[in-house]
Each structure stands twice: as structure tokens, then as C-alpha cells.
């Protein structure tokens, strides 16, 4: 099993499709941003070629969807900041699989958190934290909820 060194990188059809969707959605009218994004991603691919197992906060293992696990393969996620996208919704993710026996990294999906947002509650952070603190105190006083 290869730990690090030289990995071949390949891209799936789904990667191409989602890459194009990301470009259309975020860099359609922003040439400079698009060029920076291409350079950034090319840099990450070079990094994955030398060592695809990036530690947190840059990356980590992703659980296999039900029924898809294969012996000798790893599913991983890389976190990155695409150029000129801001806030939590602009956080980028690159999903890839590693064939550990053949030392091949397959890029299979690229997206931003914007595709799966969860709207924060309509309360201030202070309110939410205060409510959490009060509830935690109640649970501590009465763990069984009686």
C-alpha cells in the first residue's frame, strides 16, 4: 500500500460536470477569479499527487455512502477557499477516492457549501448561546429530565 510519493491523478465524468457547474455558478463573469481558481485547483492536484492524505483542517476521511465501500480504497474530502467567494457558503470541497493499491487518486466531485446550506436560526448568536447554556444547566441538574 502506497503511503505517499507519486500518485497518478484522474478525473471522473461527475468531476467534469460539477467543475463546470461551479465555474458557471460563481465565475461566469469574473475572469480573474476563474483564472485564480484554475491555478488554485491545479496546485491542489499537484499536492494530491505527492500526498493525498491531507490532515485537518485541510482535509480528512469521508464516510462511504451506504453500500459503496470497497476494500483498498479511501474516500476523502479536501476543504479549500475558492478565490473571491466569501462566507460559509463559499467554502469549497473536493471529494476524491484513492485506489491505495494502484496509487491512483480519482477526483469525483467538486462543490461549494452553498449547495447544501442550513440557514442559521433567526436569533443572534448571543441568544442562541445563552439558550444552549441554560438548557445545558438544566440537563446537568436533571439528567433524566424528570
Amino acid at each position: 500500500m502506497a503511503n505517499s510519493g507519486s500518485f497518478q491523478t484522474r478525473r471522473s465524468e461527475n468531476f467534469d460536470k460539477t467543475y463546470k457547474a461551479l465555474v458557471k455558478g460563481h465565475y461566469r463573469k469574473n475572469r480573474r477569479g476563474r483564472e485564480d481558481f484554475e491555478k488554485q485547483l491545479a496546485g491542489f492536484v499537484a499536492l494530491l499527487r505527492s500526498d493525498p492524505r491531507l490532515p485537518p483542517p485541510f482535509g480528512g476521511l469521508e464516510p462511504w455512502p451506504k453500500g459503496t465501500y470497497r476494500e483498498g480504497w479511501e474516500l476523502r474530502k479536501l476543504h479549500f477557499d475558492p478565490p473571491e467567494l466569501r462566507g460559509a457558503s463559499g467554502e469549497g470541497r473536493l471529494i476524491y477516492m484513492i485506489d491505495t493499491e494502484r496509487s491512483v487518486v480519482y477526483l469525483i466531485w467538486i462543490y461549494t457549501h452553498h449547495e447544501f446550506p442550513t440557514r442559521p436560526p433567526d436569533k443572534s448568536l448571543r441568544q442562541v448561546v445563552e439558550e444552549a447554556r441554560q438548557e445545558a444547566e438544566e440537563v446537568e441538574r436533571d439528567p433524566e429530565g424528570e
Partner: protein
Amino acid sequence: MRFSAPESAEPSELREAAQKMEQLAVMVENMWDEMPPPPAVREALVALAYTSMQPPKGIVGRYRAAIRGGISYARIKLRGEQEAFFDFVVAHRRLSNAILTAIERENPAYQEALSKAVEGAFSDLEQSKVLTAEDTLGQLRQLSDEALRELR
């Protein structure tokens, strides 16, 4: 007059905050689904992630944020806490990523898209295209061009 970092320092608040944040990140990464009640704790973590990553609004907001950031960093430098600050930034990043990742995983659409990506890749391994070291940027540019052509 020249400022220099203190040679020895007590564990700073910044370092302690970084350590706590790191511990919380590990907890979120490993135990999000089993996190004990109350649910408001999870709600608070989600609010924390979104709020702390929210960019400042407008020119005035950005200007204020830049000034506040500059002053804070000057204080950190004066106290010789650059290393603790770096640890804090990394821990904050790890925690935010862990929370956003947990939110995504809870979304059925995410699970569906991930399944599709994995199954599609396995069923078509031989058809995948090599990204060579010499031509990765060229291939990505070509994909971008195709995407923009599709819009026309």
C-alpha cells in the same frame, strides 16, 4: 524603541482558546450524531460557524474589520503570541470545517449526490481522464472554456 516577544510566557488565553476549540472540533468530527442533548448546543455551534465566517458588509464594514484586525494583530505581536494566534486560526478553521461538514452530511441531497459521484466513478474507472503534472492547468482551463461555451 524595539519591542520583542517575551522569552517565556504563561499559557495565554489565546492558546487556551485554541486548545478548547481543537477539542471541540474533534468532538464534532467524531460525535456529531451522538452529541448529547440539549439540541440547542448543536444549534449554537451551527450559528457560531456561520457567524464567525460571515464577511463584513459594505465598504464601511470591511474598513472597520480591517482596522479591528490590524489592532488585534498588533496586540498579539506585542505579547509575542503569534504562534498561539496561528494555532487559534488553524483550530478555528478545523472547527468551522467540522461543523459545516456535519451539516452537509445531514442533508439527504448531499448523501444522494455523494452516492452518485462514488457509484458513477466506480462504474466508469477506465473512462476517467488522466490529469498529468504537465497539463493539469491546461485541462482545467479547457473545462472552464467548455462551461462558458455551454452558457452561450
